[in-house]
């Protein structure tokens, strides 16, 4: 069984979660790697993914767990990256024995939101955390650096905040365009000052 970490960047960020799943399966098939299939009337490939990233967000922290007898991890990376479409690349692969529970592990994600211009309003003075009830327990961290907003937002089954919602809220204060959004890390939340990158836990 394999655990893969992959990225979807550039125009591939505009491929939806389900389509991305199909593209990954097709790429692995092109590489000649055989899957294990579910039993039943409509057998399907046994592949499990981390929670969906919204359409249009580039992500460097996507993970998938693949049930297969194939275990040549170096060759997997090489073959996959040679046969994948533009913008979809695997960073690493691990052989594992136990299926990780992504939904239990993941609590929040870090995003970098690149803006078309520097903001005029001093966002640091707006107390987002606590100011808006909707965001109160979903924004873990937020800062503004040049033309970028860096933030850690709730992500997963327990609690979730899409960056687009935060952006819409900020745009009511000052209008700006978003050039791109990048999801950089997924974290497990121990406490406010203790976010553990799930790379360390997988």
């Amino acid at each position, binding site marked *: 069984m394999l655990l893969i970490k992959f990225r979807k960047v550039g125009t591939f960020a505009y491929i939806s979660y389900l389509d991305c799943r199909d593209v990954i399966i097709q790429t692995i098939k092109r590489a000649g790697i055989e899957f294990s299939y579910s039993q039943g009337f409509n057998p399907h490939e046994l592949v499990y993914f981390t929670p969906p990233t919204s359409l*249009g967000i580039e992500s460097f922290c996507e993970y998938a767990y693949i049930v297969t007898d194939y275990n040549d991890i170096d060759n997997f990376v090489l073959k996959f990256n040679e046969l994948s479409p533009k913008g979809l690349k695997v960073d690493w692969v691990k052989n594992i024995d136990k299926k990780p529970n992504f939904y239990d592990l993941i609590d929040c994600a870090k995003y970098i939101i690149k803006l078309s211009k520097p903001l005029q309003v001093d966002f640091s003075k707006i107390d987002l955390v606590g100011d808006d009830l909707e965001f109160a327990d979903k924004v873990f961290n937020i800062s503004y650096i040049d033309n970028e907003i860096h933030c850690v937002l709730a992500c997963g089954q327990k609690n979730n905040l899409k960056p687009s919602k935060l952006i819409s809220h900020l745009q009511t204060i000052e209008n700006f365009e978003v050039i791109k959004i990048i999801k950089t890390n997924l974290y497990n939340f121990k406490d406010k000052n203790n976010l553990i990158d799930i790379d360390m836990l997988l």
Partner: protein
Amino acid sequence: MNLNYSDLIKIEKPSRYLGGEFNSCENCDFTKISNCFCFPDLYEVGMSHTGMKILYELINSLDSSFCERCFAPKEDFAQMLNEKGLKLFSLESHTQLKDFDFLHFTFQYEMSYTNFLYMLDLADIPFYSKDRDDSCPIIIGGGPCAVNLEPLADFLDVIIVGDGEEVNVKLQSIYKKGMSKQEFFDKIKGIDGVYIPSLYEINEQQFSIVNCNEKIKKAIVKNLNNAFYLSKPVVPNIDIVHNRGAVELFRGCTRGCRFCQAGYIYRPVRERTIDKICDLSSSIVKNTGYGEISLFSLSTGDYSNLLELIKKLKENPILKNVKFSLPSLRLDSFKGAYSFESKKSSLTFAPEAGTQRLRDVINKNITEDNILHSLEDAFNANYDKIKLYFMIGLPTETMLDIQGIVELSKKIQSVYQGIKGNKKRPKLTVSTSIFVPKPFTPFQFEKFADKNDITMKTDYLKKELKAIGVNYNYHDYDISLIETILARGDRKLAKVILNAYKLGCIFDGWTDKFNYDKWCQALNEIDITNYINEIDENIPLPWDHIDIGVSKEYLKNERKKSREAQTTRDCRQGCTNCGLIKFGGCGVINKI
């Protein structure tokens, strides 16, 4: 491309416009001859078209050329381009269409004509070829509609009639960067399949070509087995209409159904060998990861050795988990073909007419026994979903023929009950389309049906089929009417199509987008009766200057036979003298 997250996130399925798919062209070097293949419909429709994929891969296999793609965008994307002052661009290098040497438009159906103008408009390219100087791309039209593209003749620089594989390579080898259009046209005129509309004059009364000393012969790929075929098709990142591999078993059809344009314009039949089909299927599976291959042709059951082919494909280790589908099966030739299917899904057949008399008129050459026996086999093989296609508004049709559709459905239900027990019914769906007379068929001269007549017939079918528990779908009359006008159109229609586009008609093939009132407004200037009434066999036709190989005399004679409900044999059983032998040979005869 100056589009960011804020722009693209507002668009429905932005990936339609962004490219980046596996096997797409990455080496877009504009010092080479630049081509963009343009499909006048959405990405999901265009990417399901095998012809486009063949020419795309073919041009990209040449050293001195490359080819990109572009599809008609949805209105939301078009609006955004306009708002941002951007022009329609290609998927691969995001280059605006204006900057290519060649734009290749394919016309698969007449209702895509306004989308062609829509794409030119979004690309900021003048509509009329006379208004485009050498800085504009050379615009080429092709596809099945190319046999009569007179309605678009004023907009296109070159029309390619017939098989595109060889003639496109010739054109690429003749063209040199920086060459003037005139110089290029001088060099390519006379090549089989090349029609340059601007070189021909029109008879203003009849709107047919007057200065045509020699007809334009369609291009034929004589040996399909050795012809280029795709092995590395672009694999879309999003789901499309036909998301699977496709291998063409043969081109052409020998049946001679009198309404069917494809049956005449793609003659003669040329088959690929079993080995070739196995090789192509394996390469496509290896290079795409597809789990399904469609083995297509105009009549797949007619492939000379279908059962042997199925056996060989099943034996091939690379194809062991691949599902094969066999579209376009005839009721008399599908026996055994369904042994391919791992799961019992629905079967679709096209008897086309409800009575034997009318099936003989249209030369469908299947009997009621064929239909019932084939369905008996299918029911025995546990199929219980059957779709049947019929046409209404056919020449000589009476209410008896329409009743025949209901009667046939009842007989099919009885066959099913004979096998499965009296209380059970198959899931039977009947669909009717309206007969559209098409150029280069024996029925090219026929009248298009009246609306009252069609309404009466569809109302009857709705009532009677519902009473026996059969689902019924039917085509829109108004779309078929416009399709007839465009199919048998002449150069007078250029203005009409442009007017229709300016009034807002786009995506006319989509029933929810088709706007009949606007089309009527655009058609105001001309007398449409000339296009929908019966055409006198003796007057010149707007497409008479095109030679598809089948002679006009043959078509007239076939029409005459149809009036007497006389059938013509499948030409695999003996030549019927359609004219192809004189045209340059017909492989079917040699083969049999």
